[in-house]
């Protein structure tokens, strides 16, 4: 794989992969490590001739999700609810963003995952379904329920 391809892959997805993992785990250090692993896996896969990737973004988020699952398995424990990661500075009028992050941490992991794959990953229902191994209808229903739950939690 050419350097440019690896650099492009990194430029296109690193920020969102990191944010997704940080909100899923609630830990910056873990998000750092897992993000790096995601891209090393991706480059290795491309080097070994994984073939044409149909949906690059869906593919890279799938890698992130699998690594997250592996991590949980290694830890031999259910993932803890993701607490909001402490932020040193929040822009004026951005309190809702932090409240949302806190509310996300209180959601069941599967709901949080689908919500973040949609809102941070920008994946379609089909891509989320492929990533999570469920149906698009189930993604639709889960997203809708999660939004209603967040709406109630945040009173928006």
């Amino acid at each position, binding site marked *: 794989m050419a*350097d440019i391809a690896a*650099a492009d892959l990194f430029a296109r997805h690193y920020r969102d992969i990191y944010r997704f993992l940080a909100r899923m785990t609630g830990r910056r250090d873990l998000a750092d490590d897992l993000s790096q692993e995601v891209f090393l896996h991706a480059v290795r896969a491309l080097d070994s001739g994984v073939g044409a990737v149909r949906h690059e973004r869906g593919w890279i988020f799938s890698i992130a999700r699998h690594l997250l699952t592996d991590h949980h398995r290694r830890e031999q424990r259910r993932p803890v609810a993701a607490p909001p990661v402490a932020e040193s500075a929040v822009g004026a009028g951005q309190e*809702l963003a932090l409240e949302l992050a806190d509310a996300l941490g209180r959601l069941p992991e599967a709901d949080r995952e689908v919500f973040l794959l949609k*809102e*941070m990953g920008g994946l379609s229902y089909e891509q989320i379904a492929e990533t999570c191994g469920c149906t698009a209808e189930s993604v*639709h229903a889960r997203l809708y329920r999660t939004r209603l739950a967040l709406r109630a939690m*945040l009173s928006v």
Partner: protein
Amino acid sequence: MTEAVLEATISAALDGERVDLSVLRRALAQENGRTVLASFVLLRAATAADPIEADERVAARTRATLLRRTRGWFAPRHLAVAASVAAMAVAASFWLGAQWQRAATSPSPTPGVAVAEATRAPQPPSPTRMLQFQPGVDWRDGV
């Protein structure tokens, strides 16, 4: 039509998924539908405004690691090339060794030529003076 269907339709429409337009129209015609839409839009905006960002130094290190892996000598493609070169070198060494051994142990196909080449005398020098002997003067028979 239940409120849940209306809200689910708004949720899907917000996500750019295909929805029943007549249901969506009805949902948005209701005040509750519009409120739900506003809430969902707000949630999306709040997610986008999430201040969590990767540390730039960590990101740079990760990027460097990634590029080093694709560029360094230990990149899989480079390792494959290096392995091929090493294999060819080993094969060439065996072939040359076999050739050399065969040449050292087998007799020369034309030994006479080799001997003649080795023992060939150099050309005689050209004469520089002439000596003449006269019979009866310079020597005598029977003496």
